[in-house]
């Protein structure tokens, strides 16, 4: 068996979903839209051990 790295397919290719780039959404670039969630995730990640 030979292993090769492949680019995974996206949703457009896999499901035929329409995905349109909307530059208007770029106004949120770098902004945390879910600050409460981010704080929760920080607590989880701080205690996360990978084996």
């Amino acid at each position, binding site marked *: 068996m030979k292993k090769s790295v492949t680019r*995974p397919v996206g*949703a457009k290719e896999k499901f035929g979903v329409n995905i349109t780039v909307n530059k208007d959404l770029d106004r949120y670039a770098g902004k945390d839209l*879910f600050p409460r969630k981010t704080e929760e*995730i920080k607590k989880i990640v701080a205690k*996360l051990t990978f084996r």
Partner: protein
Amino acid sequence: MNYPKYDLEVSTSEDLFEFVSSGPKGTIEKTIQFRETERPLLYNLAFGDKKEDGSIDDGIISGNEDMEKVLATVATTVYEYTSTFPDRQILISGSTPSRTRLYRMAISKNYDELNNDFHIFGLVRKDGHFEKVPFEGNFDYIAFIVERKTLKLEP
């Protein structure tokens, strides 16, 4: 994953998606954001309803009777995002334990297909820490981590 899905809009940076849910409550704008965490290559998926003032509510129950379509649409954003950034792991947790259980049930229901494309893990509490373990359908996890499978075996 053979459910109807909503069309999506995405930002240029491909880390923010929006779609419009449509149902008995009318149209509801939904936002999905992938954000980096304190751990390299681990990104958080956050998802919620956009309110009239532009802020996001990730705890709301929309009641638009399209839950499967909404979850399938969110799942497609994970496919799309990890296609663009295949080395990134995605951390997924619900805003409440019951919502996390809902995600677990959705993963279980579609496990065979998802497992073809992702390594799927659950987070369990152990000795005061959270440990990443292979996903099993009948276990309540704190959260989930998915990682795109990029290695293909060829004869």
